[in-house]
């Protein structure tokens, strides 16, 4: 019996995608001084779009509702820099820092949604 097929909805996938994004941004920041390094980031539109397609493709009750690796599915793309640098490095410190801050905030938001959900499920179980 499966009462709650997807207790956390899209946030589970979102959290996985966000943590992958944080990892890529950390890698970009680490290689800010590496010649010829190309900055990479996740295309969320593609990753989350895949999730929705996968959800539609579950045609049997025994199918898992979301692909286990839906969040870590590739969607990694190279950044187009605002201004090219001579050494071929496309990491732009300000862009990466801003993105890192944004993604960290979005990660916190997803965490909060999951926390709220666990709280309400608990309350339902207690019958309050």
């Amino acid at each position, binding site marked *: 019996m499966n009462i709650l097929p997807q207790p956390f909805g899209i946030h589970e996938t979102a959290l996985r995608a966000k943590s992958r994004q944080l*990892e890529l941004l950390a*890698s970009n920041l680490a*290689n800010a001084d590496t010649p010829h390094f190309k900055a990479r980031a996740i295309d969320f539109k593609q990753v989350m779009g895949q999730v929705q397609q996968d959800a539609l493709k579950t045609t049997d009750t025994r199918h898992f509702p979301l692909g286990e690796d839906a969040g870590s599915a590739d969607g990694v793309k190279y950044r187009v820099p605002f201004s090219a640098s001579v050494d071929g490095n496309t990491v732009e410190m300000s862009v990466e820092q801003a993105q890192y801050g944004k993604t960290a905030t979005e990660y916190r938001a997803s965490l909060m949604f999951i926390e709220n959900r666990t709280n309400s499920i608990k309350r339902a179980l207690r019958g309050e």
Partner: protein
Amino acid sequence: MSISNIFGIASTALNAQLVRLNLTASNIANASVVAPSEGEAFRAKRPVFQALLDKEKLNAGAQYLGGVKIHSIVDDKTPAPTIYDPTHPQADANGYVYKSNVNEVGEMVNMLGAARSYQNNVEVVNTARELMLRTIDIAKT
């Protein structure tokens, strides 16, 4: 998992920036060294960074795919400036001594760059740690 990878990636960057900072310190310390020949003159050392993107090149279990490493340390190829000083104990037959090719102003700028990059990566670790702690806290609610 991904968040714990960030610690590995950031630590490779901290390590690389620290090597760069060390080289800068060494260059500045040797800025006024003179030598009796062009070949013996001190040359500024420069780190060459390389991204760790190849899975095969990593040690098994090491979690720093996407980090950075010091590929090699190369000498600055700028010719060593010569100074005519026949009274100098290290002067050659023609009375010349060879100074190191360290550009002190350039080294100071390099030092600031390395320090800023280091701080940047410390900040990355701080944020990742905070997010990880909050994720663990879900289990407590």
